[in-house]
């Protein structure tokens, strides 16, 4: 085996061990520990945003600025793709 493969397998294993170890310290599946932020959203989404869909109210109202960023990401990707496939006059 190459030296690179050995090193790669070794560090891959170390990182994997740490990740696997860490996920058992998160709350068990289906039983989130603290939920005050989300409970606040679920309880208030109909009054504050007038929306029945909790996810949409988070996407466009509570965290609307992230969605603007997300739209910007798509926009910059489109600009990038169009730029990469532009015709160059030479």
């Amino acid at each position, binding site marked *: 085996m190459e030296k*690179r493969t050995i*090193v*790669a397998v*070794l*560090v*891959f294993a*170390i*990182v994997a061990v*740490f990740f696997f170890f860490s996920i058992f310290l998160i709350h068990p599946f289906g039983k989130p520990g603290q939920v005050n932020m989300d409970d606040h959203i679920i309880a208030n989404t109909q009054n504050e945003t007038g929306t029945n869909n909790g996810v949409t109210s988070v996407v466009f109202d509570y965290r609307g600025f992230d969605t603007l960023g997300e739209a910007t990401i798509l926009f910059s990707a489109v600009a990038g793709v169009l730029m990469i496939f532009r015709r160059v006059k030479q």
Partner: protein
Amino acid sequence: MFSLESGSGFWNPILWIFIFFIAFLLFYGIRGFGKSAYKKDTDQTKAFLSGNEESSAEEMHVKASNLYWGFTTSMKTVYTELRKMHTGNASDYVLWFVIILAFLFLIIGVM
């Protein structure tokens, strides 16, 4: 007034420029004591290369990559390692990232 304190020393650019100016004047004065027999464009300014003809400037020009030839040759072992490190392979870039991740996991995570 314009000085920068570091706790153990200070740095004042205005003062530095003033002192530099005085030193320059002193240097200029001392330079005046030198030989006044120097004349331009005579034999005394020509380089003496064991009697050989002096080459033109283009031929004498040392290329940039050869400029520190002595240094790089004497540090050859270091530079071969450094060059081997910069493989230019995108997977290796990610591998270095994972290596540092593993090291810091071992240092910070265990402690």
